[in-house]
């Protein structure tokens, strides 16, 4: 994040919709007009990307649009704290992510999962199994689909869509960590701070999410190749 941590916490509060009106930008009419123009430009420039981010995190189009709106209003309330266009993109993106995470936390089932590391049971057979001596319990299935060039696979739109569906099928909190790290490209440290968990927890959940996704993808590719 580009803003100081104290500002980030404040921005997080605003993203939840409880920012006091006194936080709106101050100054003369000219400065206000300038800020307003920046706000309109901000909305028009970033709505598309933020909408995608919010949809990925919330899996609900209506709620995602609400979160996008909340993020822009929260950003406007703190326009004074950003410094230049280069920082703005990252800043508004983080506000939107924070708005989504607050919404996710409000979902009844999410909070207990977020606090627990017992979610591997949910991943079930998607994680590799090992013998007591630590060696692999079963050979990897032959996966002819994996022999295709990844670039070639990525250009197949239906496969891209299927990968996104598989990501969305991951259990919380693994899905959220994978979305933040591998799709939204946040750092491990940023992800840990936004989720309020330890860095090691982020690493563990990301690794297990990728393993589970690898297994699901393998099944898809093998099945597709056999079809």
């Amino acid at each position, binding site marked *: 994040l580009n803003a100081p941590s104290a500002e980030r916490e404040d921005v997080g509060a605003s993203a939840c919709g409880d920012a006091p*009106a006194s936080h*709106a930008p101050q100054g003369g009419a000219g400065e206000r*007009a300038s800020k*307003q*123009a920046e*706000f*309109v430009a901000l*909305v*028009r420039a*970033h*709505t*598309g*990307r933020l*909408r*995608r981010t919010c949809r990925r995190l919330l899996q609900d189009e209506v709620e995602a*649009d609400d979160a*996008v*709106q909340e993020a*822009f*209003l929260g950003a*406007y309330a703190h326009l004074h704290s950003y410094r230049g266009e280069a920082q703005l993109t990252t800043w508004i993106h983080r506000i939107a992510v924070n708005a989504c995470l607050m919404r996710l936390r409000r979902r009844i089932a999410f909070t207990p999962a977020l606090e627990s590391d017992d979610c591997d049971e949910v991943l079930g057979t998607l994680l*590799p199994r*090992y013998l007591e*001596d*630590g*060696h*692999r319990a079963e*050979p*990897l299935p032959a*996966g002819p689909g*994996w022999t295709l060039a*990844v*670039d070639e*696979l*990525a250009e197949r*739109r239906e*496969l*891209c*869509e299927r*990968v*996104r569906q598989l*990501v969305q099928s991951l259990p919380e909190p693994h899905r959220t960590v*994978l979305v933040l790290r*591998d*799709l939204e490209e946040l750092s491990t440290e940023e992800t840990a701070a936004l989720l309020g968990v330890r860095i090691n927890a982020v*690493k563990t959940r*990301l*690794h297990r999410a*990728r*393993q589970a*996704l*690898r297994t699901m*993808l*393998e099944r898809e590719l093998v099945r597709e190749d056999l079809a």
Partner: protein
Amino acid sequence: MSLLTCLEVIDCLGAYLDEELPPPVRVRFDEHVAVCPACVDYIATYRQTLQLTRGAGEDEAREDQAPEPLVLAILAAWEREHGEPPP
């Protein structure tokens, strides 16, 4: 020193890909991979999974849209909150 097991190697995989393995562990990691085709395959497909995930994300980004109704709703909400129309 004994070879790492498959379990230990795969547990280290995230740190390996982030180049965060301590050198002595990295040596043991490489020693295991040199003699374990199954782990070689697993690591390769794990990397490909990551590439496909990122590729799917980039593919999705190509379809980014800022629908005018949503843009207008945001600007209208701003107007309600601040009592003045955006320019």
